[in-house]
């Protein structure tokens, strides 16, 4: 088993000290920092997502796996600074919607997206429209991910999307919504781009948007040629 394969295994099993040790070992063996993502971290977190879906993993397993993945990425991040060949899959601004203080679901989504190679800007809880608009503009976000646990706060998602429209930022971002009371039809009714029923679904959705955008760009290039 290669060191990267071993790293993948210890991330899935939530062993943060081993993840740190194996990352250092692989670097010493000459593995390039950029190769850790496709070679270990992303497939590990994909497997965690799959097990979560299959009800083999629950929140504690996901949390410790994400912690192990972070033990690895924290070593890699400084080495990757300035390396333009390794770019995040996209920037996600996330938070719980205004009035809602329940953030564990949002945290799991953020961890899974980070594990899938996205850059996360976590605005925390009780995120109002102004704060959201500022962050999307400042960070050049590609995605907005909003969660709500209560039907009383879920309604504020509509206001957040309206604020993005008013600020002229709606076309720039794909808006994903989720949380216990949120449904596909609710997402559609407020003009969100997608609904994630759980954290793996949010990752799938973000990847689908990226694939669609890539297809759109190549079609546009063909059109121009």
């Amino acid at each position: 088993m290669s060191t990267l394969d071993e790293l993948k295994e210890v991330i899935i099993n939530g062993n943060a000290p081993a993840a740190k040790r194996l990352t250092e070992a692989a670097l010493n063996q000459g593995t390039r920092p950029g190769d850790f993502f496709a070679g270990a971290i992303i497939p590990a977190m994909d497997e965690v997502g799959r097990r979560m879906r299959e009800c083999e993993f629950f929140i504690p397993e996901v949390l410790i796996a994400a912690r192990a993945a972070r033990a690895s990425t924290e070593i890699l991040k400084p080495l990757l600074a300035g390396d333009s060949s390794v770019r995040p899959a996209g920037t996600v601004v996330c938070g719980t919607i205004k009035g809602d203080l329940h953030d564990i679901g949002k945290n799991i989504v953020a961890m899974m997206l980070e594990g899938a190679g996205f850059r996360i800007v976590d605005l925390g809880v009780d995120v109002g429209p102004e704060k959201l608009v500022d962050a999307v503009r400042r960070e050049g976000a590609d995605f907005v991910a909003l969660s709500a646990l209560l039907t009383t706060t879920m309604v504020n998602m509509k206001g957040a999307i309206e604020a993005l429209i008013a600020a002229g930022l709606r076309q720039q971002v794909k808006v994903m919504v989720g949380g216990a009371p949120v449904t596909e039809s609710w997402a559609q009714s407020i003009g969100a781009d997608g609904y994630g029923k759980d954290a793996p679904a949010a990752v799938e959705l973000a990847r689908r948007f990226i694939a669609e955008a890539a297809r759109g760009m190549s079609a546009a290039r063909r059109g121009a040629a």
Partner: protein
Amino acid sequence: MRMKLISCEIFYREFCAAIARSVNTIEVEFLTKGLHDVGAPDMLARIQAAVDRVEGSRYHAVLLGYGLCNNGVVGLTAGDTQLVIPRAHDCITLFLGSKERYLDYFQGHPGVFFETTGWLERGESDGELSQLALGKKLGITASFDELTARYGEDNARYLQEELGRLTSHYRQITFIEMGVEPDLSFESRAREKAESRAWKFEKQRGDSGLIQRLVDGPWDESEFLVVPPGRTVAADYNSGIICLSATE
């Protein structure tokens, strides 16, 4: 008129008091507190089963002591008697007397846990529901020892910190006094709970008007959804909160 009330036991004292004063004859079935914790599909199944048990011809209406409760009543279908449901996000609307007052209070106090007699004395911590509760299913209610046994001490420490964040944004307990309390003991328990967590404590005077109007009728359209026989409840999420599902 004779009515059947199916209610969450969170309102036990309040509905008993309202029924005692009601112009109608009310028969009541209380369901276990905490159905919202088992997830919307299971909650719906339990309430639907209770509605289906009612011998409709005996009653002028079936009354529901539930709100939208995280979509737990979405999909509920009336039997051969009309079904009356308060337009409420959850029980706090019924304790405060109106959805407008709840919304107003909620917006000004996002980090509040509410306590009432029902919240303090009803429900079971180790019964069947606690095993079915989502928190248990998701693995977020395990003790430090259980976490250590399963994930090792290092991870257990981390998990305890992360899972503890579930309530870390709460800052206040608000005790809603409904006028059904025998003495100050419930208020004292709520106050002690706040003190033990170093949270702010506040007391609000409740309003049992909405509860009384549910058992008395008539049911104003702005406060109640009347579901005709055979029709189904849907979520509205706007000011009406719930509505009738479109007919096929």
